[in-house]
């Protein structure tokens, strides 16, 4: 095996695992086949259960065993922490259903070193060393005397560098031994992963505690046991009014206690597994399970919160959101707070929610696809969340560097990201007042343009996955980023499987919010108490926070309740500091989100009559120029989904009509609007407003898109005075259909006070602003923006 042509210059570092089945040669052909199949399946499944990628490993069949070479980037700490016990478990499962000749007891060696592949297979001194340890008499003896199925040996190097450095591994179960095998004389460490000494309770001396018959007065009739059981069952059956059917047919199981759990999408996969394992743990010795867990995945936290707000008694709640839950497992405490608040507001006290604390943790992180071919330089770590917002704003116009976050409607991470971003942008506690304060809607609208929220149907990382080159930075949970790096598709998302590409992961130095995955116990006041169900809820909770549950959550790349996790590709060096956030009015935040993201269509009507050529005192430019400038600046608030149309108007300016269309609203992106604005110029004609305004209202109404989410508005920049013609007709038209808010920025005096304009603004829900200088114009535009993106009009 030592044919090392060309030296080890092309060798790569691997963790070397080899296994050897005890007494393989002594079995006949068919049983040997069964053993090899069972072994391969057990190893494979053990890797899978430990979250170790099998696809990168290289394996070699050794006849009576296997060699597995695990590439360097897979954490050897995780491997040694998890693999031996998992493998022992899988072997026990195999042995449970195999016949005597096909049962497996195994020796295993774990070592590491440089390995080269040549024509004969894998070779290197490291592989040789591992094989020697595996074949040693010491290890053979260990397995022979063990009561478990597995005996493990590691090299001294591996023990010193990996095993003893990993606090998760109990290295006290390892024993130092001397190995002498062929030319190898060395020190090694052995252990029996599934054969720990369990201190036994001293058994009472047999015979001492025979059951004593307690003498009773007279003698009780000794009813046969079956009759007694029957009677009891009948009594139980009697109260349900269904005597005979209370008896389960012999051999079948009684119906288990039903436990309905509503879980977030991100936890759905691991929770389904855990629910199944928990059910198995409730099995009695007939194999009948005591609890049946129905896991329903919440596609949108918002709809769960709304259902709770109705006491889950809305007509569509059970069928749209799921069965009445006994346990809720949302992604964050914010959702719990929102649910409690929804219940308080609605007065539905049939549902009672209790937060029993986190079952897992996951910090919010910034993740960016690593450009291909780049050396993995650690990404630049932002100092604070303000820095994050600034960088996002700088990158907002570039489609492949833009920042994204998941939708707060469908994702707990999206909700948490929205909260921390809004909190940072507004610099105060997020209550309803703060979110609607002056200037807040505009600020939040800016946030929405800078860190774009994903849409509700897709998964953000799916599109990053499919087009890594075109994706900027995403704010996601650490678990989602870790899954991506380890090649796992997000749960429930329609992504095609992927084989390469990584995310660089970072978070602000000051800290980041953690999704704290609370366990929420739900009880229903109007239903009778059900002690069996209450016990089931408590047992399920115990299971999730117990060692098996926590281990499974860690393997699924969540952090456990103490903040520990498995290692994964791209993991940050240190544990992110936890950023605390004060209580938040979640429904108000969600409402502000909807408002701040509202797509708008704004029809700009610019007066180009001679009155607009009047110079503004301090500027040296005309009214028209000042207005065009201000609008130009405001176009910054116009996002991809918004549309702006531009008409200029004066009496007879458009031939038979008073207006000319410079940019039709259907084509009106912000960029085109800026270009069109530069073409606006004074026409030398008298002013006339109302007919144009009427035409604009009609045009907007007829082109109305299907979505009610889009807001329409008309913004008129005009002199505003000396308009008589067409007012009553305009008011008729305004009253006759859908209200379209009309905003007027007027340069003349006493315009807004006039009866005509008060009627218009009242009818349409708009506003009128008289302006004399740039500052006035800016203020007026800001208040228009507030109405567009700031909540109910």
């Amino acid at each position, binding site marked *: 095996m030592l044919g090392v042509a060309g030296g080890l210059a092309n060798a790569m570092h691997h963790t070397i695992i080899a296994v050897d089945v005890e007494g393989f040669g002594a079995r006949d052909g068919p049983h040997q086949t069964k053993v090899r199949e069972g072994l391969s399946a057990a190893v494979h499944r053990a890797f899978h259960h430990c979250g170790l990628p099998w696809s990168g490993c290289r394996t070699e069949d050794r006849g009576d065993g296997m060699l597995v070479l695990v590439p360097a980037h897979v954490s050897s700490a995780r491997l040694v922490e998890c693999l031996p016990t998992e493998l022992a478990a899988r072997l026990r499962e195999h042995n449970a259903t195999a016949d005597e000749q096909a049962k497996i007891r195994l020796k295993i060696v774990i070592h590491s070193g440089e390995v080269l592949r040549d024509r004969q297979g894998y070779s290197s001194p490291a592989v040789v060393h591992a094989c020697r340890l595996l074949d040693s008499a010491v290890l053979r003896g260990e397995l022979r005397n063990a009561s478990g199925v597995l005996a493990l040996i590691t090299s001294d190097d591996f023990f010193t560098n990996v095993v003893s450095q990993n606090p998760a591994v109990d290295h006290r179960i390892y024993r130092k031994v001397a190995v002498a095998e062929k030319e190898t004389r060395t020190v090694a460490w052995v252990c029996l992963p599934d054969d720990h000494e369990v201190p036994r309770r001293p058994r009472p001396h047999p015979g001492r505690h025979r059951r004593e018959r307690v003498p009773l007065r007279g003698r009780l009739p*000794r009813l046969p046991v079956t*009759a007694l059981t029957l009677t009891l069952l009948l009594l139980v059956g*009697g109260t349900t009014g*269904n005597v005979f059917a*209370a008896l*389960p047919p012999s051999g*079948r199981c009684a119906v288990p206690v*039903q436990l309905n759990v509503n879980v977030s999408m991100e936890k759905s996969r691991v929770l389904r597994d855990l629910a199944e394992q928990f059910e198995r743990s409730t099995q009695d010795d007939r194999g009948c399970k005591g609890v049946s867990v129905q896991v329903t995945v919440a596609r949108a936290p918002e709809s769960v919160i709304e259902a709770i707000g109705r006491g889950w008694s809305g007509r569509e709640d059970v*069928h749209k959101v799921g069965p009445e839950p006994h346990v809720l497992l949302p992604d964050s405490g914010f959702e719990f707070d929102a649910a409690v608040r929804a219940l308080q507001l609605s007065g539905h006290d049939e549902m009672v929610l209790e937060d029993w604390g986190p079952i897992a943790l996951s910090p919010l992180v910034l993740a960016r696809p690593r450009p291909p071919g780049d050396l993995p330089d650690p990404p630049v770590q932002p100092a604070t969340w303000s820095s994050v917002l600034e960088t996002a704003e700088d990158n907002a116009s570039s489609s492949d560097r833009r920042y994204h976050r998941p939708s707060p409607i469908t994702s707990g991470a999206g909700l948490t990201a929205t909260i921390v971003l809004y909190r940072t942008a507004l610099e105060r506690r997020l209550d309803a007042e703060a979110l609607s304060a002056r200037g807040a809607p505009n600020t939040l609208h800016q946030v929405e343009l800078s860190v774009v929220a994903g849409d509700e149907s897709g998964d953000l990382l799916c599109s990053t996955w499919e087009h890594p080159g075109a994706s900027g930075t995403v704010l996601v949970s650490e678990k989602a980023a870790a899954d991506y790096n380890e090649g796992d598709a997000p749960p429930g998302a329609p992504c095609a499987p992927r084989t390469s590409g990584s995310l660089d992961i970072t978070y602000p130095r000051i800290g980041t919010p953690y999704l704290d995955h609370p366990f929420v116990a739900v009880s229903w006041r109007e239903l009778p108490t059900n002690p069996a169900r209450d016990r089931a809820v408590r047992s399920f909770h115990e299971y999730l926070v117990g060692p098996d549950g926590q281990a499974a959550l860690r393997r699924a790349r969540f952090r456990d309740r103490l903040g520990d996790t498995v290692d994964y590709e791209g993991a940050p060096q240190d544990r992110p500091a936890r950023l605390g956030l004060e209580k938040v009015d979640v429904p108000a935040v969600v409402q502000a989100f909807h408002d701040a993201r509202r797509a708008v269509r704004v029809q700009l009507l610019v007066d180009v009559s001679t009155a607009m050529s009047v110079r503004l005192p301090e500027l040296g430019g005309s009214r028209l120029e000042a207005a065009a400038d201000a609008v130009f600046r405001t176009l910054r608030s116009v996002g991809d989904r918004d549309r702006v149309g531009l008409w200029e108007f004066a009496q007879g300016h458009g031939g038979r009509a008073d207006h000319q269309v410079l940019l039709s609203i259907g084509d009106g992106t912000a960029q085109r609007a800026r270009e069109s604005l530069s073409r606006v110029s004074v026409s030398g004609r008298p002013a006339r407003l109302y007919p144009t305004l009427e035409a604009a209202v009609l045009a907007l109404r007829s082109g109305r898109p299907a979505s009610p989410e889009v807001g329409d508005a008309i913004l008129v920049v005009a002199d505003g005075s000396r308009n008589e013609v067409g007012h009553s007709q305009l008011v008729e038209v305004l009253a006759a259909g859908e209200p379209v808010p009309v905003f007027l920025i007027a340069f003349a005096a006493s315009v807004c006070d006039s009866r005509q304009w008060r009627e218009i603004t009242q009818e349409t829900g708009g506003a009128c602003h008289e302006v004399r200088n740039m500052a006035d114009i800016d203020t007026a535009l800001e208040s228009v923006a507030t109405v567009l993106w700031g909540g109910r009009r």
Partner: protein
Amino acid sequence: MTVRRWCGPRFVLAVLLVLTGCARGQDPAARFDQEGPIVFTDGPDTSNNRQIKQLVKAWNDVRGSDERVTFVELSYATDDHRAQLRARAQDLAVADPEKFREQCYDVVTLDVIWATEFAEAGYLVPLDGAELDVDLFLREPVRAVTVNGRLWAVPWRTDAGLLYYRTDLLDKAGKQVPTTWAELAAVADELAEGDLAGYVGQFGRYEGLTVNAVEWIWGAGGEVLAPDGSVVVDEPAAREGIEMLARGVEDGWIPRTALGYDEERSLDAFRQGGAVFMRNWPYAYRRLEDGNSPVSGKFGVASLPGPSALGGWNLGISSCSTHRRTAQDFIQFLTSKDNQRRLFQTAGFGPTIASLYSDLDLGRQFPYLEVLKHSLRTARNRPATPQYEDVSEEIQEHVGDALERVDSVDDRVEDLAEELTTVTGGG
């Protein structure tokens, strides 16, 4: 010697009889004469123009508030539906029915796959088959809700999976309706293009996936459990069925989004013109044929290219019900021949009254009645095992995983076979 007279079978029998009599509401004469308002549960009424809601309204208009029926719609997915019913039944099992009358679901609609489980758990009241004219109903569905000679529910709709196809697209390409799954795969692959999917079914992780999976397995000549209960899903034929499906996803003629589809979403996709073929239940017919449907007049219905899974929903009376007379009357109303005819005509629900299948007028009006009849005749039951719930969950998990990556099919099928062996206590 006094002792001897106390024990033995006669005493036990006496105890039984006494207890039977003493148990509340057990007096046979008194059992079914209470009338009053009741709650009726079913899945969401997705029929065209809400036919079930209309029936409930018709009843309420006649019977008034004294026997008002409140219709509560539970989940689409059968497992969620069962979970809600079971939880409620368990909560009310040892409670005073008078005190919690409003929380009781008097008349419950039960999926054929878990109807008997409810009966055996004591959640249902046994029914009198003669009073309910059960002889007029199809035999298999009645047999499915009869345990030890007692009837526990009345079959209301019976279901078999059908193949819906776009007549215009097949005609244009000069293709016939496929008669094997392999043919279907080939045509679907050829015609799928851009946003037009080849085939959609129910592949989300719920009972729908189990149904669709077993249909493909049966179509390939395989089976999940052999008649003796042993696990055979890892044999070549069954494996091939699953692999064909996974390959469909890999090659794209089954869209990846379909991996989250239930009945409604797949129906929507086909209705919007997004697929050449769709597997769905009979109710889909009316939804596709209504005036607003983009594919109205452009689709046909055929039997699946293999046996379809037998479905069916049955009406039972919960043990907590204190108004059993009304409950039974309402069940008779819903399952009457006239109403079943009407529900078939307007909602496409498969009737359970046998004579409707030979009704000439109905057959002329709806030629696909013949297709449905044939499909029902050849339909098969899902794996028969007391652990069906667990079996179905394992199928959902492993076939679901297999569909996500075609190169994992062999491993997933092996895992499935292992898990099923554990779960059915075999091996």
